[in-house]
């Protein structure tokens, strides 16, 4: 149990008089509160969903009051393993409790209370963020009118958990991990985190996208016949791994992957997802991407089936995209048309 916690959040647009235009954006594994725009003093730091959110964009901040936050346990300003435990005056490290999607949604509901928002117009997220949006509809059915679950799943498959566990093992077996208390040793388990990210990154792309972007392209004309970098894809993955390991906290990464693994609302209903969604009241938009094999379209269709069973209002689109799981972050005309059409309808509910 944490004695107290802080959440960092950003808002865009203006909350209307009756506070009916609020949209909560839940982030995925490596996301944070900076979802759109850039800072005056840091114009290169563009929000991770800037293609989707902003003035005139599908989630139009001229109509909606958009909130992005960093989840509890994250490493971008909200209380997490890297934060100082006021009782010990040292970073929490290994003593930071495991948090679940349910915990996150509870903490998000407390944030909503602070902001005086009784009901969100919409709660939206991709991947792990989609799970949080779904969880909102179960934990606080009256507090959200529309739930948008994009490239998400009602629970992970064994294969998906397996990927997470390899990623965790890379971190846990890094000699610099020190059981999670690496901060006090003045090191970070960068090798493990880098490997974890490299593996993750492969699973977020599709075979075709990788073939298109890199093929068997070489960095120089010849094979080196060594273990140095030969292929462009090696160079790309190592670069991505290094970049990620330089700013992300390994304990946060462990915690986020565990939250993914544990999420399973059907578990307490004898694995009956239909029963799990019986309490939901929101309207839903479920989207998946054709080449996403980490959160495959059939996982989204399982959500849709449970929503249909409960006679909830739901639309589902399967977006043709070559970019695998990462598609949900990409600029894509049809995907954005669907989102814009859906959000235009939501906007009509409170401007009318």
């Amino acid at each position: 149990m944490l004695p107290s916690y802080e959440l960092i959040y950003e808002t865009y647009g203006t909350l209307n008089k009756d506070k009916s235009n609020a949209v909560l954006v839940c982030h995925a594994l490596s996301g944070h509160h900076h979802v759109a725009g850039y800072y005056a003093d840091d114009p290169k730091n563009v929000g991770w969903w800037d293609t989707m959110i902003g003035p005139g964009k599908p989630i139009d901040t001229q109509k909606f009051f958009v909130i992005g936050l960093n989840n509890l346990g994250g490493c971008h300003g909200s209380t997490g393993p890297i934060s100082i435990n006021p009782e010990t005056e040292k970073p929490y490290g290994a003593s930071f409790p495991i948090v679940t999607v349910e915990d996150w949604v509870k903490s998000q509901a407390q944030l909503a209370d602070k902001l005086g928002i009784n009901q969100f117009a919409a709660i939206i997220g991709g991947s792990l963020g989609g799970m949080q949006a779904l969880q909102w509809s179960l934990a606080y059915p009256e507090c959200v009118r529309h739930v948008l679950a994009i490239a998400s799943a009602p629970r992970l498959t064994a294969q998906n958990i397996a990927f997470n566990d390899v990623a965790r093992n890379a971190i846990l077996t890094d000699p610099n991990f020190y059981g999670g208390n690496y901060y006090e040793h003045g090191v970070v388990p960068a090798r493990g985190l880098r490997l974890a990210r490299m593996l993750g990154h492969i699973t977020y792309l599709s075979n075709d996208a990788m073939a298109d972007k890199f093929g068997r392209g070489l960095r120089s004309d010849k094979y080196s016949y060594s273990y140095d970098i030969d292929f462009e894809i090696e160079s790309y993955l190592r670069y991505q791994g290094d970049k990620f390991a330089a700013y992300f906290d390994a304990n946060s990464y462990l915690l986020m992957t565990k939250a993914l693994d544990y999420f399973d609302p059907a578990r307490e209903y004898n694995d009956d997802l239909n029963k799990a969604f019986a309490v939901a009241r929101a309207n839903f938009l479920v989207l998946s991407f054709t080449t996403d094999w980490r959160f495959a379209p059939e996982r989204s269709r399982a959500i849709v089936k449970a929503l249909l069973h409960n006679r909830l209002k739901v639309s589902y689109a399967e977006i043709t995209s070559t970019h695998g799981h990462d598609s949900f972050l990409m600029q894509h005309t049809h995907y954005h048309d669907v989102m814009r059409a859906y959000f235009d309808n939501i906007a009509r509910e409170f401007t009318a």
Partner: protein
Amino acid sequence: MSTHDHSTLAATRPDFAAIAAWIPKGASVLDLGCGDGSLLRYLQGTSKVQGYGVEISDENIVACIRNQVDVIQGDLESGLSGFESNAFDYVILSQTLQATRHTEPLMQEMLRVGREGIVSFPNFGYWRNRMNILQGNMPVSEVLPYQWYDTPNVHLCTLHDFETFCHDNKMSILARRVMTGDSEIKLLPNLLGSTAVYRFKRAV
């Protein structure tokens, strides 16, 4: 695009009014191959139905959402496995039957998922179509607007053909409405009707 006046819609698609007349208020409806969602929007207005559309085309998915019609993207040819048995009062296949490849299993699926099925299709036995054939050409008309080389219609049939099909597949026809334009045809329907709408259920 986003708003359709009921009376205009009924005039351009007379089968809509025929279908609406059969559907009681508050019924649950699944519209297969729902296009831009016009029929469901119409039925939401006339019969306060609770409905979903199924549509394959990206463009129509966006159109349905703009029409405030719930739509599930999917391919009818791969069946209705995403839908539970007896989930709907009515499953509708409006002006789509003739373009389906696996017509027989799809008709069976309609009656698995719904209590009753409603199908509308262009009557290939309509006299103008027969005339075209006699003159040596494939029919092209308002209800069959395609040339032989670009038509999506792979399973055209006449009223007789459809009724035989239902009989052979143990489906009983509950009602039929045959039309040419917006007038109902009662005399020699297989010859004088250009479109037909049927309501049917599993024969017991």
